């Protein structure tokens, strides 16, 4: 009897607890917070963009992409420059630019953005960033009220273009950078927490561009494409960037989802290592270039989400693919070129050899961009068909192999014209002192053309120089350009104002809304 009574008592207490939980708290006015959950493969340590300090490595991309920071100028959908934090600029002389700033912009720290704030930010940029000093060549910055005057050490025809690179996002240097790499920017959102895998943002209530419609944004780095697909299908996230191509068909023609796509200048390409003896022979490099089936790579493996590449720039640029030529896909000719170079299959094992050694190369890449392992495996089969044994090393630790030189062909993805101008790609990849010239490629004619471009202000003439430079690197077969990416965002159909942009810079903006 006692036991029964005890059981009944415990049961009633438990029931009371359950019913207590069912009751909602009384509130005065019911508010519905708009929260946008965004999954992306493009944020993380392997991308070099963790944190929001635009001066560090490629973190400026995160600053601008996630609506925290803004640059003085930005790119339109047709990759033309338009004012953003600035109202305009004046070319004082060939070395000097005067930029006029908006008068109504405040950092999330409360400080007003003026010439002095911009000067402090740009001075820190050239002190900290490894690319900016050579791009901007800044000698002196003078701040005066709502203007900054920038004097360069030499002619600076595309200074404004470079300032529109995400590393040029203007942040409050007096507020500084926190331990978790958070900053005070001018954008529609401000971060409440930042880590290597997530960024939590809230709207900036004093955004100069007007009311921000979405209250909170949660950016999640999801490295696995299948996890991202399922997260979108289950509703755990509202939009994605970097969905596997195989998954896109699940969301096409589906009324619950929309897809926003844009051609970009992000190019998948391979660089030859000139330290590898076999690759010092131009015939071998050309044979490799001719053996890779770019058309099927783009149409089949990328499911048509791109265009086969000739050079580094897509067709929509005046200096793009239409202006240059390269040998077309021809495996038979590739074999003949190898034979001319002295590589033939003398022992019948299916691989060409010379002096008793098979032609074996290592293809280094990283899995952070889903397209790269696909390109690697396709290239492996293509090169096997012409008798080259290709070992694929697809690893997140690719930089260790780059530094140790343990690679022969390095494939990567790069936005080749983020400034809308061709100089950026050549400056970063193809010149003797280029930071990303991993293969140690050097061509004296290329260096001469680069110097000409450095001091050329006329856009049409710059395009002509670019075409000559592209043709030079293609003739040398120093690089093989496989495909230009068509980038897609997949999102729930209730999301608006979230559009793919050809620069790949702008994602979360004040236009973002949830219906």
């Amino acid at each position, binding site marked *: 009897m006692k036991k029964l009574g005890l059981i009944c008592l415990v049961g009633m207490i438990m029931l009371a607890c359950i019913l207590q939980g069912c009751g909602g708290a009384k509130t005065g006015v019911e508010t519905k917070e708009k929260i946008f959950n965004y999954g992306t493969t493009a944020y993380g340590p392997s991308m070099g963009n963790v944190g929001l300090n635009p001066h560090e490595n490629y973190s400026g991309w995160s600053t601008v992409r996630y609506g925290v920071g803004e640059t003085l100028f930005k790119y339109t959908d047709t990759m033309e420059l338009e004012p953003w934090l600035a109202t305009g600029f004046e070319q004082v002389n060939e070395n000097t630019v005067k930029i006029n700033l908006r008068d109504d912009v405040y950092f999330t720290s409360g400080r007003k953005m003026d010439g002095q704030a911009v000067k402090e930010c740009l001075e820190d940029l050239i002190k900290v960033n490894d690319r900016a000093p050579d791009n901007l060549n800044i000698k002196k910055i003078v701040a005066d009220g709502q203007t900054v005057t920038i004097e360069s050490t030499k002619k600076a025809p595309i200074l404004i273009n470079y300032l529109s690179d995400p590393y040029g996002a203007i942040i409050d240097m007096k507020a500084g950078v926190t331990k978790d790499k958070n900053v005070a920017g001018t954008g529609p959102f401000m971060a409440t927490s930042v880590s290597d895998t997530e960024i939590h943002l809230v709207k900036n209530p004093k955004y100069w561009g007007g009311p921000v419609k979405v209250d909170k944004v949660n950016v999640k780095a999801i490295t696995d*494409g*299948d996890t991202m*697909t399922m997260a979108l299908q289950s509703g755990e996230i509202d939009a994605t960037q970097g969905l*596997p191509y*195989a*998954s896109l*068909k*699940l969301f096409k023609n589906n009324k619950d989802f929309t897809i926003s796509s844009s051609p970009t200048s992000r190019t998948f390409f391979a660089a030859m290592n000139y330290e590898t003896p076999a690759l010092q022979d131009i015939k071998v490099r050309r044979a490799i270039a001719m053996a890779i*089936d770019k058309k*099927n*790579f783009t*149409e*089949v*493996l990328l499911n048509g989400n791109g265009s086969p590449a000739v050079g580094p720039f897509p067709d929509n640029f005046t200096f793009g693919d239409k202006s240059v030529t390269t040998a077309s896909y021809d495996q038979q000719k590739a074999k003949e070129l190898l034979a001319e170079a002295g590589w033939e299959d003398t022992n019948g094992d299916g691989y060409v050899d010379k002096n008793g050694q098979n032609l074996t190369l290592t293809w280094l890449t990283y*899995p952070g961009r889903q397209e790269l*392992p*696909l390109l*690697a*495996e*396709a290239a*492996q*089969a*293509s090169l*096997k068909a012409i008798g080259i044994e290709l*070992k*694929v*090393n*697809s*690893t997140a630790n690719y930089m260790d192999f780059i530094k140790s030189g343990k690679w022969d062909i390095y494939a990567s993805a790069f936005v080749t014209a983020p400034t809308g101008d061709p100089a950026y790609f050549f400056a970063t990849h193809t010149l003797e002192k280029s930071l990303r010239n991993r293969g140690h490629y050097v061509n004296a004619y290329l260096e001469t053309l680069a110097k000409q471009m450095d001091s050329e202000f006329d856009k049409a003439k710059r395009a002509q120089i670019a075409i000559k430079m592209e043709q030079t690197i293609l003739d040398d077969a120093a690089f093989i350009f496989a495909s230009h990416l068509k980038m897609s965002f997949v999102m729930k159909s209730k999301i608006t104002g979230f559009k793919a942009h050809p620069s790949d810079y702008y994602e979360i903006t004040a236009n973002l809304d949830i219906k």
Partner: protein
Amino acid sequence: MSTQKKLWIFTFLTVLLLLIAIFAYFITPYDPNAQNLAKALQAPSGAHFLGTDSYGRDMLSRVIAGAQVSVLSTLALVIIISLVGVTIGILCGYLGGRVDNVIMRVSDIFLAFPGMVFAIAVAGILGGGILNAVIALATVSWPKYARLARSQVLVIKESDFLKAARLSGTTGWKLILRHIIPNVANMLLVTAVLDIGTLMMEIAGLSFLGLGAMPPTAEWGSMMSKGRSLIQTSPWVVLAPGCAIFLTVMVFNLLGDTIRDYRDPRQS
């Protein structure tokens, strides 16, 4: 069905699997590594019984070729860990004293780590490749056999027949080879056969994580990993290697169970 009949059936199936693994590249209908992008992701049909993958490679050919890597590497792993582990265990049990203490403390260190996590760490350091995956798993798996062998030897050491053998002048290696190993072998054989399934799953697991077989090698675990994103649109790419793993593990497990039942009916 009698135990003997079951033993025949499972032995036959195992031998069949081994023959498929050994002669895989002779019996595949297509070259397992030959790409044909025009035929990518075709559903199972008369021309391609298990369909094609995202590179247009024939799935049936790749599953058969995968048997060579998956089955033979697993057998190699089992042989390595049982030979190494049993040798160490017998020496520890027979010699005792400091040798036993030191080696058993070393094996305790290995056993303290979660096996698969440790294997992933070792494979991560060594790099990708099926050989490195086998080395990584061997590193973490030998202590089990060492301990088993040691415990058996400790029991046998106290048995009358061994004392008699010692009294008759048999010592050292002769004692181990003639009296200890034959009495330990039965139990360890059953353990090894039962472990084949588990170890095959572990090799597949490392390959799934990108730490095992490198492209374009057909290996069931890496095939499942690459096909994950296609499970909703082209499920055959994942199901084919997945079923192969399931059937193979089942055959070896059932073989191990049957051998155990046959050798010791009290346990059936």
